[in-house]
């Protein structure tokens, strides 16, 4: 496994982000409704313990639980740690403690923030009380955290209107950031586009050529490191006429044709747009060539090929188009054709 840096390393942020809307069911819903109303509720298990936050099933027997029990909003720190700086995605914007707090009336501790200025102010066994958000919506963030008892935080005001509907769903956005660095094979493939070249990988076993290059011959499970230049012409192995817009591709007007393009010299297809003709003229086996961006707009990206247009040359027979090409060649020429190792 050699680590081979490319001349100019391509990298990009990959952000996995979604504002999940979660339906809560009655038990989690009761807990979140309680928080909205300035109360903390747990659930009683089969053996009489009060679990906070509540769970839907008895952790020992699996039985369904539904007896909600209100507990105090103050209690004792069971264990703690300190976060400086706070973690991204957490509700806190300054250094804080994180701990398990056993509320009075509960038999199990709950996790939340500990609101003090330094870790020196934290110790196991200390008494703390809930600090409530002024605006509460039925979310675990309605509880800002726990502060030392007697630190002067007023008790939570109960909801003005107890007739409010119970909480049934909660929004819990997730955002994860990844530093996306293409593989060495992909780096070379992308850089080659800037020079108006399309690269493939050649199998060391049977000479089959794969595009885009992934550094692997998938038929044999071996590394394929040899890079080869491919023609900018090929045929449509197969295609889809899409009537749906793609999020983020405002440049595409529907319907458009996405196709498996089988380049001359390559043994598998890769996806491309077909244009320069009517949508209903596109057919399996149609010969196409690359239409490139102007030279002064070329960059290290596959988007340099704007689309594939018909060449007007005779079609490849349907039986020999796409992945059938490999099989047809093998069947036609048992000795000179590609080996089926």
């Amino acid at each position, binding site marked *: *496994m050699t680590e*081979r840096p490319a001349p100019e390393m391509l990298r990009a942020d990959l952000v996995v982000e979604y504002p999940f809307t979660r339906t809560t069911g009655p038990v989690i819903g009761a807990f979140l409704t309680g928080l909205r109303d300035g109360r903390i509720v747990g659930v009683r298990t089969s053996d009489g313990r009060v679990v906070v*936050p509540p769970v839907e099933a008895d952790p020992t027997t699996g039985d369904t639980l539904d007896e909600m029990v209100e507990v105090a909003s103050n209690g004792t720190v069971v264990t703690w740690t300190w976060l400086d700086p706070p973690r*991204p995605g957490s509700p806190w914007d300054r250094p804080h403690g*994180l701990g398990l707090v056993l509320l009075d009336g509960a038999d199990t501790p709950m996790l939340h923030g500990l609101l003090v200025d330094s870790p020196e102010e934290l110790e196991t066994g200390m008494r703390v009380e809930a600090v409530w958000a002024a605006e509460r919506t039925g979310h675990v963030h309605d509880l800002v955290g726990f502060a030392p008892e007697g630190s002067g935080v007023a008790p939570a005001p109960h909801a003005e209107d107890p007739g409010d509907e119970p909480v049934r769903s909660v929004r819990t956005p997730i955002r994860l950031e990844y530093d996306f660095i293409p593989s060495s094979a992909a780096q070379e493939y992308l850089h080659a586009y800037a020079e108006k070249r399309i690269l493939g990988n050649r199998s060391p076993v049977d000479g089959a050529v794969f595009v885009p290059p992934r550094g692997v011959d998938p038929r044999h499970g071996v590394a394929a490191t040899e890079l080869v230049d491919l023609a900018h012409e090929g045929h449509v192995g197969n295609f889809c006429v899409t009537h749906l817009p793609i999020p983020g591709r405002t440049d595409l007007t529907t319907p458009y044709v996405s196709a498996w393009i089988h380049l001359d010299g390559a043994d598998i297809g890769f996806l491309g747009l077909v244009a320069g003709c009517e949508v209903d003229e596109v057919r399996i086996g149609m010969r196409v060539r690359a239409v490139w961006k102007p030279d002064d707009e070329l960059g290290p990206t596959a988007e340099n090929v704007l689309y594939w247009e018909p060449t007007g040359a005779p079609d490849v027979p349907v039986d020999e188009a796409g992945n059938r090409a490999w099989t047809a060649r093998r069947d036609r020429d048992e000795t000179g054709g590609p080996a089926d190792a």
Partner: protein
Amino acid sequence: MREVAVVSSAIHQVEALTFTTDVQLMIPLVNAVRDAVGITQDDVDFTCSGSSDFLAGQAFSFVHTLDAVGAVPPISESHVEMDGAFALYEAWVKLQTGEADTALVYSYGKSSPGSRRDVLAAQLDPYVVGPLWPDAHSIAALQARVLLDAGLATPEDLAAVAVRSQRNAVGNPNALRSSADVTVDDVLAEAVVADPLRPSDLSAESDGGCAVLLAAGDRARSLCDRPAWITGIDHRIDPQALGLRDLTRAPSAALAAERAGATTGRLDVAELHAASTAQALVLHREFGLGDGVDVDPSGGSLAADTLMAAGLVRIAEVARRISAGDADRGLAHASSGPCLQQNLACVLEGE
């Protein structure tokens, strides 16, 4: 139970696989375990892998990794979204049915592109815990303090575990953190990063992968001079919520070890999958590891912890020592989830 053994294994762990994809990582490992015993994929009856989409930031991330095996012609294959040790368990079950005599197991994890300690918060209760985004280091710290407060360990005890790991890791090419002369005082001199834990208390995050080949009965004997026989394997889980658990204990680890036969009879070696030195001490206690057991001779997961592969690496490390004749009987452990929530124990023996 049918006799099943580890007949070959391959490991690769580094700090970051910057330009190497999962499939490029796995090709040499998969080929190595087959080549070591002179077989090809055609001779492999069942294949099972483990990985995580969340680590990759991509759905169905395992689909392209299948190309490392060369699944042409098609293979009998399965995938678990779990550590590779659990993929090995599934393969072991398959061999127990008698429908397969050989099985290829592999797993891999590349956590360096993201913030692993934060990604792992996505494992927690998504309604009332996840939105607080408690990172994995903080969760490990909460457990460590419970252990310290209960008087079951001192900071010196934790540091001693770190020292053992780093010293044992010397000479292990797959370890990230090793030192021949580190002392308890050196570790205690490190600044606390996740109170009460220091950097050396937290496992060294690595990228990497592992492949293992299993074979049954005489097939194993024909492939390997000294197969590492799996004489017991079991896994168990505890409820997830930290508040529901006594964090000084890992009942599922104790139960799995007992059912795998690890708590009776002599153990020469044990490889533990712990995210912190405190977790290693919890496991010592649950497994009843005495002075005669060589614990974490590779450095354990503290020296290199590849998410999704660290458990399978433990099995490979024990199997290697048995096949090499350095040990006769060993315990390999894998875990998953916060604070040792889920645990697998595998007892391996030489003949």
